[in-house]
């Protein structure tokens, strides 16, 4: 008896309890539903096929030694070493890109969401950010080579005499930060706008300045969104190939320029996993499919881990919600 009453009390979820049969529908509706199912299942199948295929190839070809040996030139695949240098390159480029994109992105998002005046500048900034998101990365790469091969910024890359090489980790990182910028701005802004205005008012009411409010209240509360944006940005940076091929040189190993320990690496050329895959595909210069598969698998793993982190952060962030 009691349980029956309780059952009635719990509200059924909206249109979940009673799923109507589609047998009474018009034929066109049923065809539509069938198409929906076929395409949905087909998409699932493609996704699973891609992941499983890469997994199988990865298990077949990835050896731990590949991760710890530098690539070398050679005639067959047993002589050409691993991909330590591209791995290091990927990490360096991601760090460098985020070092620029994260502060700038958060600052732009804070300005857009908290200040945003004059109105015209805010509109211009919004559409500019949107436009950066739509700019092909190959165009960014060409722009980068133009900027970084000018003598003014010659100290950021290799130079010989008056010729500035224009290709370095600095150049690639700077241009890739533009690729990540829209994601960080968008996500941070969303997080800031989700904070109800009474939180700001409360903080101002106890005598905090506006900037203190932003720094002590708003940004800490929006941290999950900032982190999500940063992760998405890193995903885009490590997945980009065009900028790397053009601006990092996609050389076999890390070629430092100069003698200062870290600076020489950053001023020098190198490669990342994406450019390694590109060069080792049958259309590239090296053409070693097994190495390409192995590197692609490692890259895919990195993307997968990033995705999981985004999920984790999003779930954590949901726990802290404001009272309305």
């Amino acid at each position, binding site marked *: 008896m009691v349980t029956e009453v309780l059952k009635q009390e719990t509200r059924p979820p909206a249109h979940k309890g009673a799923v109507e049969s589609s047998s009474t529908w018009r034929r066109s509706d049923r065809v539509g539903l069938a198409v929906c199912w076929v395409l*949905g299942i087909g998409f699932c199948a493609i996704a699973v096929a891609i992941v499983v295929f890469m997994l199988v190839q990865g298990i077949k070809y990835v050896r731990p030694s590949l991760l710890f040996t530098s690539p070398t030139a050679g005639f067959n695949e047993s002589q050409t070493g691993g991909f330590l240098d591209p791995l290091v390159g990927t990490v360096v480029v991601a760090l460098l890109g985020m070092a620029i994109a994260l502060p700038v992105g958060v600052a732009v998002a804070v300005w857009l969401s908290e200040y945003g005046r004059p109105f015209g500048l805010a509109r211009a900034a919004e559409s500019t950010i949107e436009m950066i998101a*739509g700019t092909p*990365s190959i165009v960014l790469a060409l*722009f980068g080579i133009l900027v970084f091969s000018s003598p003014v910024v010659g100290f950021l890359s290799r130079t010989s005499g008056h010729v500035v090489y224009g290709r370095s980790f600095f150049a690639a990182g700077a241009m890739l930060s533009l690729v990540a910028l829209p994601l960080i701005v968008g996500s941070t802004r969303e997080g800031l706008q989700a904070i109800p205005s009474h939180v700001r008012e409360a903080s101002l009411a106890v005598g905090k300045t506006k900037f203190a409010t932003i720094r002590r209240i708003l940004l800490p509360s929006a941290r999950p969104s900032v982190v999500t944006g940063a992760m998405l940005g890193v995903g885009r940076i490590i*997945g980009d190939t065009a900028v790397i*091929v053009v601006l990092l040189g996609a050389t076999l190993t890390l070629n430092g320029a100069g003698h200062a320990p870290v600076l020489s690496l950053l001023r020098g050329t190198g490669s990342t996993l994406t450019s390694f895959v590109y060069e080792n*595909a049958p*259309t590239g210069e090296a053409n070693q499919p097994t190495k390409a598969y192995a590197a*692609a698998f490692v890259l895919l793993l990195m993307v997968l881990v990033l995705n999981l982190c985004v999920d984790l952060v999003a779930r954590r962030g949901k726990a802290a919600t404001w009272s309305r």
Partner: protein
Amino acid sequence: MINEDQFLPFDEEPHWWSDKRAELTLGALVCCVLAVVLAMFVFVLVQAWPSFAHNGLSWFGSGGSVDLQIKRMFLSGEAGVRYVYTFHAWPLIWSTLLIVGSAVTLSLVTSLFVAVFVVEFAPDPIKQVLRPAVRLLASVPSVIYGLLGVLVLVPFIGNHVITQQDKASVSYIVSLSGYSLIAAVLILTVMIAPLMISIFADGLRSVPSSWIEGSLAMGINRWRTFWKIAVRAARPAIVAGTVLATARAIGEAVMLAMVSGSVGFAPNPFDGMIFFFEPSRPLGATILQNIEGLSSPPLKSTLFAIAAVLLVSAMLLSLAGWAAKQPLKRYGTR
């Protein structure tokens, strides 16, 4: 017990971070970003100008072999005596239009159905698989799609789909090896569909459930309700997703350089079935593959001209998306 430290008003911020200064600093940073983008436009257009100036409107036309023209430009730049700028980009533009157009059309239709499936009709277990799957596929680097294309799809098309007869029939013009229009379109579709699906699905989810329940309460079936109410209300999201995916497709250089065949050839629709198997090379891939030619001034200018075309079309695209969204916003959810 009240912790008094929390209520001290001005102690924690260094005085040089006054409010006014903070606002100005942030504003200046925003202006810097604007300036960088503006500089990009100006620099690219200035570099591109010689190529456009020498060719006029025939830059966009057809005539002669593109690959030969690029080679001549490169050689004249190396020789340095008299620069040759002649360039007719139609085969590249045509290839871009074909590949991007068909991939976007194909994935727009597919993604709409899949998004509806993900949001509404899929049983819960499938939903739970699909949502992360879409997210993962959307973030897979394009070079991995390219690798799969080159090592799986292209050999399959080359060995099993194209017959020897087909190959022989056009062997004196192009070689059909599997690097083809259809491979590029299929891989590009798989690449941009997850982007569209995730944006469409977000739009569909944000439709107020009361709208849908209202329609269901009138006795309209679920399919019709969802198609007529939710999909219509989500039209701004559909436009936004399409614009973003198209921009990604236009700018895609690496993957298309790998699977499209990299021949400056304009596929001819009157060739019948062979049309789908003909190789070509879109604009972005052309830049990527001739990047070593930056040392030669005329070729450099031409590459920047291609970049300018890509940049301007990306801008027009986002403008068109904005214009298309305005009337839809009134009844839309976003």
